[in-house]
């Protein structure tokens, strides 16, 4: 991919499809209330896409993460999630626990 083409893609495929929602929100801010049915559906769709991205990154990860066995990746996600629930829904506690489990597991596996 040429350098100029990469920036063109960034503008057309990254910036525009994101910014359009902000600008629509900017327009909508004049009157419409939050939490209407349409936005509830939109939020569900967005959440499902994001969940799909997360699951794909864990199951079909990029190279460096793919060297860690799937069981360890899943175990780390599970432990991080439990820590998040246990420690007053703290994002930092969950992420830190997941990372520690992943790294210790990977080291134990000889990576």
């Amino acid at each position, binding site marked *: 991919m040429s350098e100029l083409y990469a920036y063109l893609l960034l503008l057309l495929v990254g910036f525009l499809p994101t910014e359009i929602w902000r600008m629509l929100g900017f327009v909508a801010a004049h009157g419409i209330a939050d939490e209407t049915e349409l936005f509830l*559906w939109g939020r569900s769709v967005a959440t499902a896409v994001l969940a799909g991205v997360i699951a794909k990154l864990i199951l079909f990860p990029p190279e460096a993460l793919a060297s860690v066995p799937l069981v360890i990746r899943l175990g780390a996600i599970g432990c991080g999630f439990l820590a*998040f629930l246990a420690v007053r829904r703290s994002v930092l506690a969950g992420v830190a626990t997941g990372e520690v489990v992943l790294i210790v597991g990977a080291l134990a596996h000889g990576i």
Partner: protein
Amino acid sequence: MSPAPTTNPAYCSRTAAFLAGFRAAWGAALAYVVIGTYIGIAALARDFGFDLWWAAASTLLVWAAPAQVILVSALGTGGGAVETALAVGVSSARLLPMVMSLLPLIRGPQTSHRALILPAHLTAVSVWIEALRLLQSVPRERHVPFVNGLGVGFMAAAQAGTVAGYYLAGSLPPVLSAGLLFLTPISFLISTTRNCRLMSDWLALAFGIVLGPLLAALHLGLDLLWTGIVGGSLAYAIHRLRETLK
């Protein structure tokens, strides 16, 4: 309730309010999750062959971590431009209600429309959460500069993470590279879970986790888009049905 006079020196001028917002961003635990998330994104971008300037520009222009992950992984694995744009667009739809519910909070009777363009662009999950939490203690006429400071503060954290992640990814032992790449899925999973309030949110999360890899493994094309539309609509429909039957 009478409005409190602007006596707090932290808000005595627009610049002071901007700096107070900037400091508030760095004082929030979320700033460090943002740094970690962007370390993961930059490592991913480097893994897929993008350069640092491209990664930094994508943080500045897109400013939505999930969209950036989709953008980098889809383009990096040779995904089509139209499919990628649709998936990015679907994932960013959540920004509409966020901007819509934030702008009315920050504009005063004197605020021009133009002054709200920058806060709209800076709106992201982190900014939105902290703005809702902190704005009540900021005088109304300083809301715009405060939110701009907050947004620029979080974006500075993201850019610091982008640079750090980009340089760290190549030079670290494999186990730490794996750890950096793991930050993206785990921090997204946990922050998305934290944002789940309604049953439709929880169902959408569960359906997306199942459908995403399943549709990807079936090689149907547009798998993230279908994950969103099928999983999200199903989650919404079940939620609605349950509310109706109540």
